[in-house]
């Protein structure tokens, strides 16, 4: 098992309160966490230092979550994505073909944050799930 401190997570959400609570939780769990409010800013962060896992909202101002995933897959295919969404969301075919599945979609609100920790660890290749 890798140490969670070695695992970097990027949160992309335009809601400040959501960003803050996820950052607080994941930092408490020992992850290295960064957060952006826009997909365009996330692209810059990823280009400089790609995280192991990116947890992104779907509805974002400007570029949306799906577009972010597609763009990042082309330039940094090693980044694993989790989707964090407030409404009903069905993965489009191309993302399913790319290996994403329903387990990668977390509906807001997350009732048990430890589930998020397990998913992040699993996606980062740790053996916590």
């Amino acid at each position, binding site marked *: 098992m890798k140490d969670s401190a070695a695992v970097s997570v990027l949160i992309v959400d335009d809601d400040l*309160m959501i960003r803050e609570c996820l950052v607080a939780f994941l930092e*408490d769990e020992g992850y290295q966490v960064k957060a952006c409010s826009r997909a365009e800013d996330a692209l810059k962060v990823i280009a400089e230092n790609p995280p192991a896992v990116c947890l992104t909202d779907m509805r974002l101002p400007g570029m949306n979550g799906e577009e972010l995933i597609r763009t990042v897959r082309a330039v940094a295919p090693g980044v694993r994505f989790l989707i964090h969404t407030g409404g009903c969301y069905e993965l489009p075919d191309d993302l399913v073909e790319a290996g994403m599945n329903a387990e990668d979609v977390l509906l807001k609100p997350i009732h048990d944050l430890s589930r998020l920790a397990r998913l992040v660890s699993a996606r980062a290749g740790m053996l916590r799930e």
Partner: protein
Amino acid sequence: MQRRLQESVDEITRLRGTLGEVIDSLPSLILVVDRDGVVEQWNRRVEQFSGIAADDALGRQAAMLLPQFAGHLSCCTEVIEQRTSLAATKILVQSGQERRFYDLRIMPLEAAGNRAVVQIDDITEQVRIEELMMQTEKMMMVGSLAAGMAHEINNPLGAILQHAQNIERRFSPDLPANRDAANSVGISLELLGAYLEKRGITRFIEHIREAGTRASQIITSMLQFSVKGEVQPREVDLSQVVDQAIDLASNDYGLKKNHVFRSVSIVRDYDRSLPLVPLVVSEIQRVVLNMVMNAVQALSAEGAGHQPLITVRTRREGEQALLAIEDNGPGMDEITRHRIFEPFFTTKPVGVGTGLGLSISYAIITKHHQGTIEVLSNPGQGSCFLIRLPLIGAA
């Protein structure tokens, strides 16, 4: 002269016969009354409806023969005298647990000044279709509203619920970062924990989480209206599905604690020859679970000494499977029965019911399974939910 007279008599007889046949073959209940409300004509439909033959009806008071419409029929004199028609719509006639609706019109007969014709039409099916459409429209409205709202509401709910979890975690002495921070400001987490407990603050945080969870469940339930049944139905044994749902109810923690549920007798009366029914098992189980929970809650209102009973029946009705879930609880009044499938309509205390259970059941049965659902109930006579599912070509 004699021959012409005979021809006229024959013609009149033929015309009367034709007229009588026309009146008899009309789908409406038709009667003609004089200014005192005494019957002069009584067509075949009224005979069938009232069980009174025309020969027995002629010369008697219409209001006595058709007591269901007595109030309106008593206006015949007024109609004749004032030469103005009277119309009433959706008159409810209740016979046992069956409810039927009628339109009634009383029109003065222009040529024969002292008489009026009464026309009564059964509009039950029309009213049912109207109610069904209204219900469907309401559900669609709630569905589209929910889909639009879900994103906006789930974000703040996420912040509330997740921050509540963070707060709990950051009070915990188990996290090294908490201990470091407490040390740096010179307080003990154990003492802080004792204070939070003593002042009920830990319970307040729990309540924030519970309330947030409840709100999020309401949003999730509302989304059901906008979601088309995605799972394909498969042909299964309806009785077995109902059995499984009752077992699920028995294992439900909330119901296990309910003293009424522990004492309720559940009678299972299944038609073993019922063919397999195409349905989405999880959805039908949800409907049955909902009905059973509602029945238990209704039965909880009964006093001591009452033996609570839920009867579940399956039957074949032509090309439909019938599932009846009946309780011997306090029943419901007309207003409640009328609104029972309406989203957010509830008779339960705040926090106990969201008013969505039955409307979701309605959506599952009518939208996802192309079936029908109705309730028969009267105060003091229990309630019976009737669910009909097509045996072929569903969903």
